[in-house]
């Protein structure tokens, strides 16, 4: 395991102000945001349903609902 403190030494250690958010964190956040937006767009435009109970046959919400058999 890398030294937990040493791995972040350098500019962050000597600075007087908190370190800025790393680039990889910003890119990761953008990627997550894009994924969420795509999913929301698919739900709104394409009629793709999502969320708890989608697959639940008892809810009658799933595409292949067999609620009548429960």
């Amino acid at each position, binding site marked *: 395991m890398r030294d937990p403190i040493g791995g972040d030494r350098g500019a*962050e250690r000597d600075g007087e102000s*908190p370190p800025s958010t790393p680039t990889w964190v910003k890119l990761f956040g953008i990627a997550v945001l894009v994924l969420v937006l795509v999913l929301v767009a698919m739900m709104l435009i394409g009629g793709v349903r999502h969320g708890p109970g989608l697959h639940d046959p008892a809810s009658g919400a799933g595409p292949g609902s067999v609620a009548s058999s429960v």
Partner: protein
Amino acid sequence: MIMPSALRKFALAAHLTSSVGWIGGVIAYLALDVTVATSEDPQTLRAVWTAMGLVAAWAIVPLAFAALLSGVVMSVGTKWGLFRHWWVLISLVLTIVATLVLVSEAGVISRIAAIAADPTTSDDELRALPGTLPHSAGGLVVLLVIQVLNVYKPRGMTAYGWRKQREQRES
């Protein structure tokens, strides 16, 4: 509180075992999920849904909670901390989200498995049972992202971690 070396190694072994086991469990579940999506044979569907219910309830869910708990212990009990480094924080958030979605899905899977095991369920109803492929595939991607973060440990300290480090240096 920093754990003694022997305890830290035990916690690390528990965390590695449960985390990698969680991924393995999801891959096994994914194979069954693909079978549900592609098979039309009622006997196969009954057997596979029963297996999916068992794998989810007795392997994936317990391993998920073990991975989450051991991960928190590893973070709190070492210098990494829980909120000091971005990779730890993001791993924690992703693990919590994955566990919550899993628990929600596990209940659904259990109910579908019970329907599939019911001898009164007709063949057409068996074929109409909805699979969980998007969730299991998405879950595997999330777990692999967490694994990559944990292996590479990309650098980057949070403002909280930076403040804590300064306090420790000054004291």
